[in-house]
């Protein structure tokens, strides 16, 4: 396996308050990498920094041995970040949201096989009428249709029922077998059905 991300001495401050300081770690290609830590330790912030969505930090991140922010648009085509709280247009239906996003990514709707996450039942519903769990499933379905190199999930198991958590675990295993890299943060007590390649614990830094 080759090195995908190399994070050196990452520090993040909110004004005077330290969130984390001098964290260094590497992420291998085709691995499942977990970021652990209690609430408020900076898991989401760290994921956003790696996803290129937060540029206000100290330290260096190398992606495939080059600086992270050389070509932002190209980087965002390779690295997908899925926030803990799914964000869609509330007044559009699930299908309309997908059609809108389809203009920016190369979707493959055939990947949603066997009515995964009961897609057929909710595709004509407006986002504002969906529960948190259903929104989360829509977000994950969105990820499934994509073919990015790196998938960054923030608290992906939140709001999901046991059945869907198992489906998500299978999906992670499937992604890894397709040579994708997964980064995720999680605080739930879910027993994963996949093997975590490496992790960083923000409680220890």
């Amino acid at each position: 396996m080759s090195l995908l991300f190399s994070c050196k001495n990452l520090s993040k401050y909110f004004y005077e308050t330290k969130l984390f300081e001098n964290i260094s770690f590497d992420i291998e290609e085709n691995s499942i990498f977990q970021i652990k830590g209690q609430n408020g330790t900076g898991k989401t912030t760290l994921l956003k920094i790696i996803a290129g969505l937060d540029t206000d930090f100290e330290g260096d991140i190398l992606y495939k041995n080059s600086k992270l922010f050389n070509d932002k648009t190209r980087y965002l085509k390779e690295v997908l970040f899925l926030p803990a709280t799914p964000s869609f247009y509330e007044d559009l239906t699930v299908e309309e949201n997908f059609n809108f996003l389809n203009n920016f990514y190369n979707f493959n709707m055939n990947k949603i096989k066997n009515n995964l996450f009961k897609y057929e039942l909710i595709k004509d519903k407006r986002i504002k009428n969906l529960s948190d769990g259903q929104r989360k499933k829509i977000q994950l379905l969105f990820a499934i249709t994509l073919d990015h190199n790196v998938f960054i999930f923030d608290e992906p198991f939140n709001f999901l029922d046991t059945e869907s958590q198992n489906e998500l675990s299978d999906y992670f295993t499937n992604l890894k077998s397709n040579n994708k890299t997964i980064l995720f943060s999680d605080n739930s007590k879910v027993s994963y059905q996949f093997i975590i390649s490496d992790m960083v614990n923000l409680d220890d830094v």
Partner: protein
Amino acid sequence: MFKILKIIFFKDVLIEIREKGNFYYILILSAVFSLVFTTYLDYKYILFSFYITLLITSMLVNQRISRQELGKNDELIVFSLPFDLSVFCIAKIIFNFVIFIFQALLLFFLYNLFSNSYYIEFNYNFILFTIIYILGLSIFFTCFSLMLERIKGEGQFMFITILPLVVPFLFLSFNTLNQLYYYEFSEFIKLFNLQLLIAFDILLFAVCPILFSYALRR
């Protein structure tokens, strides 16, 4: 670029047709403000109050439109999409421009309906000035409300933060407004204030989307 502009614009149109929230908001605000101003102000100030009403209502409507772009986590929904955010900003400016044109027409009708002794004349000078005025408003309201909605979750203070841009715009539009009905159209378009206002609009249109994209992504 034009494809993305079209997609974002028609997405906004679809939401507006479906929800009609902004449409009702415009109706209510326009009716209330025009009634209040035409009742309390002398007829000499009706034309000025028309543009002040347009400014206030468009600012409030613009904030609503900007808020629709935020997800549940107070981030722009399109923030992580792989495209240049200045294109998104331009699409929103165009959409707001269309909404404000509708708003201006509605206000024109309401002002002429409520004012007893003074009618706002609908001539080429009025049309040209209103379009330029609305274009300027839609540019800086869109850019800065989108930026500040994201930062604060609320954009009420945007007017203060963009004061350096607003003040020259207001001065120029006020000076042009004073001369609105004094000249023929052929003379009106040669006015220094109007030409400066057009130049200021072009400058805003060129700078604000780039500034918006840079401020958010960097």
